[in-house]
C-alpha cells in the first residue's frame, strides 16, 4: 500500500487521493476569497530542494502550524457545509500525519533541523505580515501547494 516517506519518517494509513478530493471540493471557494495575488506564503524558498532528511522536520512544523493556527479558526467561519466537511477531512488527516512524525532530535541532526526551521520561518513571517484573516484564507488556499510537495514523498 502507499505511504509517506519523509526521509526516516514513515506515515501509513493516509490516502493522499482523499486529501486531494477534499481540497478540490472547496478549492474554488477558498481561493476566490484570497485576492492578494501578489503574495505567496509557500514560496520556492520554503519548499524547493528540501533533502529527504530535512523534509521530516519541515513537514512537521508546517502541519502543526496548519493545525494550530490556520485550521483552528477557519472552521468557525466556514458556514458552507461542503467546506466544513472537506475541512474536517484535511484537518483529521493532517492530524494523523503530524502525530506519526518523529524526527530525530540527535545533536548531529541540528544543522538539518535548523535549515528546516529557517524555511518554516520564511513561511511564518510571510503569514504574520498579513492581516490574520487574510493570512488564514491564503494559507488555506495554498493547501494544494503543500499537497503537491507532499506528493513527492508519497510512494
Amino acid at each position, binding site marked *: 500500500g502507499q505511504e509517506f516517506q519523509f526521509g526516516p519518517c514513515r506515515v501509513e*494509513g493516509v*490516502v493522499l*487521493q482523499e486529501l486531494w478530493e477534499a481540497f478540490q471540493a472547496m478549492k474554488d471557494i477558498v481561493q476566490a476569497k484570497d485576492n492578494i495575488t501578489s503574495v505567496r506564503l509557500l514560496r520556492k524558498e520554503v519548499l524547493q530542494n528540501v533533502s529527504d532528511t530535512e523534509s521530516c522536520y519541515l513537514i512537521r512544523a508546517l502541519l502543526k502550524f496548519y493545525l*494550530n493556527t490556520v485550521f483552528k479558526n477557519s*472552521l468557525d467561519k466556514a458556514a458552507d*457545509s461542503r467546506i*466544513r466537511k472537506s475541512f*474536517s477531512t484535511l484537518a*483529521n488527516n493532517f*492530524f494523523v500525519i503530524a502525530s506519526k512524525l518523529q524526527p530525530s532530535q540527535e545533536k548531529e541532526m541540528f544543522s538539518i533541523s535548523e535549515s528546516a526551521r529557517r524555511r518554516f520561518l520564511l513561511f511564518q513571517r510571510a503569514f504574520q505580515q498579513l492581516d490574520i484573516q487574510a493570512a488564514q484564507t491564503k494559507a488555506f488556499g495554498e493547501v494544494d501547494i503543500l499537497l503537491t510537495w507532499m506528493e513527492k514523498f508519497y510512494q
Partner: protein
Amino acid sequence: DGVTVLPAPQNLSVQSTNMKHLLTWSPVTVPGEIIYYFVEYQGEYESLYMSHIWIPSSWCSPTEGPECDITDDITATVPYKLRVRATLGSQTSAWSTLQHPFNRNSTALTPPVMEVTKDGFHLVIKLEDLGPQFEFLVAYWRREPGAKEHVKVVRSRGIPVHLETMEPGAAYCVKVQTFVKAIRRHSPFSQAECVKVQGETLPL
C-alpha cells in the same frame, strides 16, 4: 434550543463492513407523529482543538429512519464521536452520543465476491465493486503439482479483467482477497474457483 420534551434516541451503535459504516439507534416513537433525527460527527481534530464544533452528517441532517449511512463522513483513520437527536416540529430531544468513538480501522473485511469465467482460452475474472478504497489481490495458478502461483493487483472495479491465456486441457484456479490502503488491512482469501479448458488444439 426548543423545549426538550422528546426522549433522546438510545442504543446508538455502528455496524461497519467493507468500509461501509452504518450508525443505528432505537427509534423514538410518538403515536401518529413522524420523528426526524439529526446526526452530527466530530473527528479527533475537532474534539481536541475545537470541541464546540460538530459537523452535520452528509445524509442525515435530517433523516426519518433510525439509521444513518455515515460512510461519506468518516474520511480519516481517527476516532470519530457521533451524536443523534430527535425532533418533532419545534420539539427537540437532548443529544445522544455514541458511547465509544468509532474508528474505520475496525471495519470487518469479508472475502470479495468474484466470477471466474473463460472466454475461449482466456481466463477472465470479474470482481464486485467495493468502492475506491479497495484493491484486489488476485492469485491464480495452473492446477498441477508444483504449479507456480501468479499474483495480480487489480484496481479497476466492476469490469472483467483478463488474467491469463490458458493451455488447452489444463485447469486453472483463482482466489482473491481485498486490501484497503486507508487502514492497511487485508480481507481473508475467497474460496478458490477453478475452470478447465477443453482439450481442442489451437485452431490455425
